[in-house]
């Protein structure tokens, strides 16, 4: 606080709460205006549709609209429980997402550090571009690529196995290995793109720390261990908290295109989205799908609040709010 403002506050009567808010709003009006697009975006696309969630509790018809249609309580949620699959689906969804989040972040950090350690400029740029590419490949194509690699009759992997005298493997009937395959495809697709944030964070580390470390004779490994990794911690935690909110949301496109209707693999690959899709695809049933979405959102919301609370207890600086 500058001296001038300090004098000012002493002379004026203590402002009421309302006045303070008004003044603060006035002071930061430019910032508020700059926030406007984001605020409007969230109002329109996130808060605006929220009341529409009511449809999950109605027997919807066009004439009466969302709020006029008859209220049916939890009836639209019944099929989730009735199927007896809810536990399996929730478990699969959460485990996959945990694997995606943990392994994804680790490989992104590793990749960012490796890129940072590269000294040859062109090699660095080229490898960065190549790693980036898979992100822009549609999951539909990934499904096709996977089939061409893994299928029994003509797949590349089995052709290779046969070349070396082995017996071809029925990969599309082996539920046990699909978690691995799905995670590998996910990492292949997302690591390059995801590493950018970490790479940017590394770029932002105060260079005097590296200079000091160099003078002290730190090795490359020690530089990574004692400077880079600790400096990435806040970024890591923020990204972690963000992604936890979506932990109940499956990567529908990837799973559907890799697995589709292959029920042999469902034990280890069926997630909430794919299962619900199969149940109500031709049912013209918006209320049940909204019910599922609501279940996922509420669960995700609770999880973010919980994790944020835990983080805040451990270190308030790292918490989102």
């Amino acid at each position, binding site marked *: 606080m500058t001296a001038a403002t300090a004098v000012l506050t002493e002379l004026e009567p203590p402002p009421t709460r309302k006045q303070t808010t008004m003044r603060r709003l006035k002071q930061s009006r*430019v910032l508020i*205006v*700059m926030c*406007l*697009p984001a605020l*409007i*975006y969230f109002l*329109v*696309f996130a808060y605006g549709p929220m009341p529409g969630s009511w449809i999950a509790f109605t*027997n*919807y*018809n*066009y*004439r*009466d609209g969302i709020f006029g249609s008859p209220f049916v309580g939890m*009836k*639209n949620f*019944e*099929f989730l429980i*009735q*199927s*007896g*699959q809810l536990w399996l689906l929730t478990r699969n969804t959460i485990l996959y997402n945990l694997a995606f989040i943990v392994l994804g972040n680790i490989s992104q950090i590793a990749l960012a550090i490796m890129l940072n350690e590269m000294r040859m400029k062109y090699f660095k740029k080229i490898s960065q571009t190549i790693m980036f590419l898979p992100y822009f490949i549609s999951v539909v194509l990934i*499904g*096709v690529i996977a*089939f061409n690699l*893994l*299928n*029994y*009759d003509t797949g590349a992997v089995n052709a290779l196995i046969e070349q070396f005298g082995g017996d071809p493997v*029925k990969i*599309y*009937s082996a539920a046990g290995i699909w978690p691995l395959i799905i995670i590998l495809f996910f990492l292949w697709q997302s690591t390059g793109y995801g590493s950018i944030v970490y790479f940017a964070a590394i770029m932002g580390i105060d260079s005097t720390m590296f200079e000091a470390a160099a003078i002290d004779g730190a090795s490359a490994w020690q530089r990574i261990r004692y400077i880079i990794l600790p400096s990435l911690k806040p970024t890591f935690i923020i990204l972690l908290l963000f992604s936890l909110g979506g932990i109940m949301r499956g990567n529908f496109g990837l799973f559907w295109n890799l*697995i*589709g*209707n*292959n*029920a*042999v693999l*469902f034990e280890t690959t069926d997630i909430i989205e794919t*299962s619900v899709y*199969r*149940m*109500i*695809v*031709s*049912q*013209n*049933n*918006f*209320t*049940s799908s909204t019910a599922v979405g609501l279940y996922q959102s509420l669960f995700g919301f609770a999880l973010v609040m919980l994790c944020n609370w835990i983080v805040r207890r451990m270190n308030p600086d790292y918490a989102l709010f």
Partner: protein
Amino acid sequence: MKRRTITKAGAVAATLALSSVALAACGSGGDSDGGNADGGASGDITPITMLVLGDKPTNGRLEAMLDELNANLREQAGAELSLYYVEWADWQTQYNVQLLANDGSVDLVTTATDWLFAWENAEKGAFLPLSEDMLKENAPKTWEQVSASGDWDLTKLDGEIYFIPEDNYTQYTNHGFFYRGDWAKEAGFANGEITKFEDFTQYFQWVKDNQPEAYPWDVAGANMAALTGYLQGHTDAITLQGVATGNYSIFETTKSDPYTISSNFMEGDALLEAAELAKEWNDMGVWREDAINYTGDTREEFYAGLSGADQHHTQTFLTQIVNNMTTKQEGSGPKMFYFGQENGNIFKDLKTHGAMAVSAASKNPEKALQVYDLIRNDQTDYDLLNFGIEGTDYILTDDGKLDYPEGYDSSTDALGSNFWGGRMDEYEYDKVTDAPNKWETYEALDAVAEDYPYETLVFNKDSIDSSLATIGGVLSTYLPQLMYGKFDDPAAAIEDMRAELAAAGYDEVRESLQADMDAWASEQGLK
């Protein structure tokens, strides 16, 4: 100081511009395709939008056709037509979401009772009830023709007409196998004709042994024909339309007991027989080991001589397969075995397999009906909408058949207007590319096929929606494996499936459907 103000003002302006772009983006509706740039702007011309199914063509031919058509429509009805496409990707959802929006952006809606949720949407209030006066006044020709055929009853819910049937258009969408006559002959079938479902084992085995390049039946993904084809020809089951459970329709009646609902998927041995045959085929290597996950274009494989069979309906056979196979695989003598051929268990297409409804939110329902009456009954308008511009999109041969101009390639040059809610036999041309025996085929089918008996039966699914979803979930974990013969012990798998179906509420669903059936049957004086 001044500079700061300018900067601020600039920031505010930029922000507002950005937000308005964001808002504008969510306000612009779909990819509706105006036929004429100045359409709608002029005072007396009413724009009418028709929702059609299919991928929106991008070759410019549709726009050219609409320009000509709209010149007529402006004069005849003071209206202009544009088409709104619900594309094939995820069409079930997109179609219903478009109707759910109910925002007046479409006036005419292509619908169907067996595949486009017509009853459900009528029940939910998406369609405008059409009064007799309204129809007589605005669509007199349509009114007259449908009345003469006595078909309005097929479109009534609680006594009100909700859509207009495509009831004067001959087509057969009954399914079956397409196979090669030349190979069948070598496989030992007289005249190369296969007349029983099980006989395909012999045909497939011959292909396996003698055509090493080809799969006996290259089939992909969601296909169910190995089960449903068998059931149709070995039972007298009639599959009920409009009660989907996930991707499947399992509720049936039988010809011997037409008012009692049951299901071969739940009772009897026919499903097991079908599954055992499918397992035999799987073990023979009739299809790819990983057929369930295969997404390739199996029809192209058939055209290329790399598959011994293909599977779809009569219409596909007559209008595409015969022409393509005779040119791409000379001497292949393509033939079709239709499911139910053994026991005559086949049905004609529903007269509401195609239909047109007026959206409940349409701002100009009368005008929409006037436009519909023209595109259904005015030969010039009909030809333009369905076939395009004569000379560039099609030509007429001296004997009155429809042909295509030199250099026309149906895969890139198609008009794609997809008017499937009001075609008329008297305005249709025979195509040069049609199978030469098209009409004989229709006559032969007419001789055996019956009318679907429950065209006016509408099920109320409010109380069973959740069980239907659960049943769909159970089926989706068993039927693909049964169809592709992947269970080592199909009998045990079917037993498990039936136990799960029972737990999912099969009996309650059946009873609820049965109650609707009983009410309908007594209403119709049938029972």
